[in-house]
């Protein structure tokens, strides 16, 4: 697997976490990428940098809807400097549980489940 493919998969997976039920048409409209091109990208065709940015932009727009996301990022920065490894582990476990419980309420998402079963 080339590093580009890995980054591409991560980006698509992250996008899918935010928009799990988006159709190709909706992805196209959200990213500004042509629908036929979206189909190819979803089937593993290599992304151009601009396309990767378009997917990331869509996620950034979504996260901006939650001002607490920025707050959490700042707090995590402080936590990593102050808390012990054990305490960080507890926080990570806590957040991971929240995410997993919420994910159970969503439709079956293959990649997310695979990650969960490995973790």
């Amino acid at each position: 697997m080339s590093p580009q493919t890995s980054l591409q998969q991560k980006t698509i997976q992250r996008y899918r976490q935010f928009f799990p039920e988006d159709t190709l048409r909706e992805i196209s409209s959200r990213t500004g990428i042509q629908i036929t091109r979206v189909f190819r990208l979803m089937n593993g065709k290599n992304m151009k940098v601009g396309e990767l940015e378009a997917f990331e932009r869509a996620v950034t727009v979504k996260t901006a809807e939650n001002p607490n996301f920025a707050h959490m990022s700042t707090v995590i920065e402080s936590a990593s400097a102050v808390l012990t490894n054990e305490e960080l582990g507890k926080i990570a476990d806590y957040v991971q549980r929240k995410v997993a419980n919420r994910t159970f309420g969503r439709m079956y998402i293959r990649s997310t489940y695979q990650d969960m079963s490995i973790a």
Partner: protein
Amino acid sequence: MKGLSSLERNILECLGRQSLSYEIIQHQTGLHENVCFNLLQALIIRGIITSEGGRYKVSESISPLMMEEINGLEARQLESLELMEAVVEQKSNRIFRLQKVAMDPRDEKIFLAMLSNLDSFLQDAHKKSQTSVPLKERKVVFWGVGEVNSLMNQIVTGR
């Protein structure tokens, strides 16, 4: 994820030693169809339950390592916190009380004896109604006690 989420535990408690259909599990747990299905799939992927002929049961070959992961102290602590948080944040019919109480040694002994009585009562109540009351209608009850000084130290040091 370490251990089980309280949702997954619900499914396992519902199954117990039986082999049940999806419909019965969903009815007993009261989980939304989609959530129930996703939980069953996740538990199958982790090898904790198996499915045969449309019926689900707890796997008989769970490794000791997986058992420790499911029932280990750390996993159970996280699960307890999950349920306690849900009780504290409950929107309706909320019963939760936390107090700092001054107790002399005599009252403390009485209090601990009352807790022991409460524990016996709950165990008897559960034994009496466990076959008639479905999982979704059972009550989550918890209690605990600690000394302010040691709790504060624990909060400050993180240990």
